[in-house]
């Protein structure tokens, strides 16, 4: 069942982009749109958008870089370790949960390391990879998306995003314990 689903989504994700290109541009021709001219007109904004997000991305990544390099994550993990025991989350996976919203490459590194040490099919290995797939890099998403429209007062986007991360992590622990539990 899961194999079939996986195969279907795999095929879909491979044909999706050619299909979108063909259908969108083809539909344009049908509707008598001057496709080339309109495409170029739209594509023109690509550069400006990319350049506009640079200051936001620099601000965010530098702060995250300083936080990561200082080893503050270890200190935070130590403080929070007693709480994780209560919900049945192995202390080894706590850095993963904390890093996930902050840095995609950082959490990828932690996940790889955990699998190397504990094995990919161990409880910790499955939990770490589930955690990786259970949420997105909140800080990066906020910096890029708000940066593109020059929004500086982000209001409740960050607390809501972090709440999503928290429940993603809790959900990962819950389902992994039930299906692959100790």
């Amino acid at each position, binding site marked *: 069942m899961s194999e079939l689903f996986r195969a279907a989504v795999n095929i879909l994700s491979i044909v999706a982009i050619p299909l979108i290109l063909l259908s969108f541009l083809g539909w344009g021709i049908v509707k008598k749109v001057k496709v080339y001219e309109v495409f170029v007109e739209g594509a023109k904004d690509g550069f400006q*958008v990319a350049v506009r997000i640079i200051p936001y991305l620099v601000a965010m990544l530098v702060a995250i870089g300083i936080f990561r390099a200082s080893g*503050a994550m270890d200190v935070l993990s130590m403080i929070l370790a007693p709480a994780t025991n209560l919900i049945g989350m192995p202390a080894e996976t706590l850095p993963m949960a904390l890093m996930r919203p902050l840095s995609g490459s950082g959490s990828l590194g932690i996940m790889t390391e955990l699998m190397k040490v504990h094995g990919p099919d161990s409880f910790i290995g499955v939990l770490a990879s589930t955690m990786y797939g259970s949420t997105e890099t909140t800080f990066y998403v906020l910096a890029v998306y708000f940066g593109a*429209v020059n929004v500086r007062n982000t209001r409740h986007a960050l607390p809501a995003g972090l709440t999503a991360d928290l429940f993603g992590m809790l959900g990962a622990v819950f389902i992994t314990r039930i299906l692959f539990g100790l």
Partner: protein
Amino acid sequence: MLNYVWISLIAIGILVAVGSDTKDEIENPYRNGVPVEARIEVHGRPSTEMASWEGDLVLSGEYYRAFYSAQGGGEEIRQRVKVTTASTGSSVLMMNMDDRTPERWKLMASSGGTKDRLKGFLKTVRFTEEGSTAEVTVEFEPVHFVKLRAITHAALDYAGTAVTIALGLIGIMALWLGVMKVAEEAGLIRSLTKLLTPLTKRLFPEIPPDHPAVGAMIMNISANMLGLSNAATPFGLKAMEELNKLNPKAGTATNAMCTFLTINTAGLILIPATAIAVRAAAGSVNPGIIIGTSIFGAGCATLFGLIAVKLFQRLPMFRRDDPGLASAQKEVSRV
């Protein structure tokens, strides 16, 4: 909110680094100023008169562990070194780092400025009779402020990375923005939007259901779910631009923007391809086993994220700045 989190990341980082470096100064884990006793097996034709000679620095793992109170080192440590004697008579030792170098030395080398070499000073050298080995005491270059150096490096490094990421977006941004523009002119986005109106009307009550922003958001979320992150980002940024056109207060996030980004940060994805690839590379028997658990986890994230974003937008501290509300009030006062 973001202001405080941002400054906290930086401040906590710097304070922890200062704390950690202060602890190092007290505990001296790198044994600054304390010489290591070791043996050098000299390569080639040994001679004390030569200005520079090479050899293997050898010490027992047991001695290393006791000296640094650290793990690792194995049975015996053997490192390639080069000794250069200056005209003043003092000898400098350069050790090349390799895969078998113990962690503590690697750390010392990387904080000393030369990433692949560790510098030390030979305090005493005593050659054996035949000159093939030398009993030496080496004092490595003192190591200070490891973490402060690391955060300085990280700050500069990540600033560069940010620009690399942004510039890397230019090409795919242009491609997808162009395609989107064609689809928009052809009326395709509008028909797509109509299909999902019942759902989008609930999630984004402030946005007219046939607005182009809705189409771009749908494209973004679908691309994300299929794992096409290259296409998802341009669609998402296009959606933000469209949402911003409805924003009466430039520079402040609207409720719709926050809701949209919460869905994005929850990252619901049908196939977590990266995690599966890493599992396969680590030799998993069944790498795809996490598909179901990940969908459950991300589903929780999306559901509770949406509940949270709808609750938070009612809180006074966030409501105060609501652009939608501000414009409504302005209209009232004008009447």
